[in-house]
């Protein structure tokens, strides 16, 4: 059985309860106290000490608030730039997205790890064994989502465990539990896939014709890594949420590099050998 997330950004209210619940359950320290100026987002990104992160994307529409305002025209104006010309968005938007480890199916971080610290556990989640990791940091640039990060003070890398400890006790992850609007859905990947499809149908019917699931290999452009067990329902292009459109598996080319290396070794060997000719 594989478990995972479906995070529906269309119902997220940006309350950050998930972010706090995650920190509290996992007893992770705060990242520091600095006003970023990036809307209401002051933690900025996922890190070794922030395993859930709520992004805030503002794009309210400009409008004059006087009598001669042509609201209908303005609404249309906005519709053009919004997916599906959804009526709901006639007056601007402020989008929230609770980001987390994608629990990639062919997880690049796992493949990169030389110690075998990163495994797929019995729930098919990508899990770092904290007693194995030696902090080589090689998984960090491997992750196509900038999720896994080293904590300098600790030396090791950390990321969402998908609340392995809670799952083992039959509980849902802390973030999903805390979410007041069910934006974070936790469950079996296959089930969530169905939920996601239904949700997309509903959203499309409401006029959000560009709603899509990110993380399903067939649809979301994540085929390169076999898709994600932690999927998202999105309305804008992936980059808006700081997600790659087509993340790729870095290790896919290791074998290719062996071949080119071998050729290069041969050529260099020959070149040097030639130098020995009298």
């Amino acid at each position, binding site marked *: 059985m594989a478990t995972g997330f479906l995070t529906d950004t269309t119902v997220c209210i940006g309350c950050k309860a998930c972010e706090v619940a995650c920190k509290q359950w996992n007893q992770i320290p705060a990242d520091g106290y600095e006003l970023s*100026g990036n809307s209401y987002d002051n933690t900025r990104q996922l890190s070794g000490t922030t395993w859930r992160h709520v992004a805030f994307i503002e794009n*309210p529409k400009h409008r004059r608030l006087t009598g001669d305002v042509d609201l209908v025209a303005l609404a249309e104006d906005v519709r053009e730039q919004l997916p599906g010309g959804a009526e709901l968005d006639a007056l601007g938007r402020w989008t929230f997205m609770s980001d987390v480890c994608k629990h990639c199916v062919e997880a690049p971080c796992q493949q990169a790890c030389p110690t075998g610290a990163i495994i797929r556990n019995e729930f098919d989640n990508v899990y770092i064994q904290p007693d194995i990791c030696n902090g080589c940091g090689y998984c960090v640039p491997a992750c196509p989502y900038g999720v896994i990060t080293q904590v300098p003070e600790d030396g090791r890398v950390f990321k969402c465990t998908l609340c392995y400890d809670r799952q083992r006790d039959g509980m849902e992850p802390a973030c999903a539990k805390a979410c007041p609007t069910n934006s974070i859905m936790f469950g079996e990947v296959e089930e969530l896939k169905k939920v996601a499809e239904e949700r997309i149908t509903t959203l499309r019917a409401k006029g959000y014709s560009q709603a899509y699931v990110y993380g399903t290999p067939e649809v979301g452009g994540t085929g390169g890594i076999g898709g994600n067990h932690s999927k998202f329902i999105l309305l804008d292009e992936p980059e808006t949420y700081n997600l790659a459109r087509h993340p*790729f598996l870095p290790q896919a080319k290791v074998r290719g590099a062996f071949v080119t290396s071998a050729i290069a070794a041969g050529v260099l060997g020959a070149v040097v050998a030639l130098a020995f000719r009298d």
Partner: protein
Amino acid sequence: MADATRETLQNRNGHPDNGRPETSHHTRTDPKRDEKGYYGVPPIKAAHWTWQIPLYFWIGGIAAGVQLFTTLANVLGHEDEALTRVGRYTSLVAMILSPILLIWDLGRPERFYNMMRVWKLRSPMSNQSWSLVMYGNLSGLLAVRQAAEDGLLGRNFLSRLLIQLIPAKVLSILALPVALFVGSNTGTLLSATSVPMWARNWAFMAPTFLASGVSTALSYLSLVLHLGRWGEEKTHTVLRRAERATILVEAALIAASLIRMGRWGKPLFSKEIAPLFVGGTLIGGIAAPLALLSGKETRNKSILTSVLVLLGGLAFRFAMVHGGRQSANDPEAYFSFASGENAPQPEDKV
């Protein structure tokens, strides 16, 4: 749209220098908004690696090149004791320094042995650890034999036994592919990541690192032999010839890499890295040595050439590692890279 409305919108929007202040968000009309991404926050994380890693890359490359040259000399029947001696001791020292540097860089150095828990062929880091272990042992054995031959272990039975038991030629030949792997894997290690500049160049990364390793190794040998006033005349001649040839190969591979990297190679020419890459590697490490090598040969010129090549190789590795960091921190680079056919795809031909 009402005229008034349009006017308001136009006044507020559009132009980068419309006097509009920077806002807490990047609206569609905000010039910043045109860039894809989220407040310029890097979508992937750069490796934390500090100076130890590029230094290791350099040393590993030298070890590989030294092994290549000495083994070939051995196999091709060019016996130069000084060369062999320098080669074997160098490998040993390199194989002692490399793990020290690597372990130094670990977040939890005391757990370095966890690298030996598993061997994952798809993980260049794992391959690297194992190849270092293998090459380390082989070069250790060779160095022990050398020490015995040199009488460093005393002139006794044990030394003689060691000399008899350690088959130098066989071990050298065995060590050669491992050493070459160590030298090229440093490149593979970089290319098997999500960092655009590195990943884009997966085909030439390892060859370039290897070529650079060989050229620095030849320079190193030449330098040491010159300084010690050791070695036969032929060794010096061969070294010079080989140096010239490998620098050319290296230059070709760097050129190929730059072409392959395309726009994602930009960081190499950025303000911070250009001095290192253009000044240090391209001019100092390739162009200048080539020029020096073409004229009449003197000892001093030779020494200078070697130093330049070695520094150029070191600069190259720092430039590549730091360039990768810049590349990872640039949302535009990553998004343009990971948005389609640019990224390595499974169906790509080797």
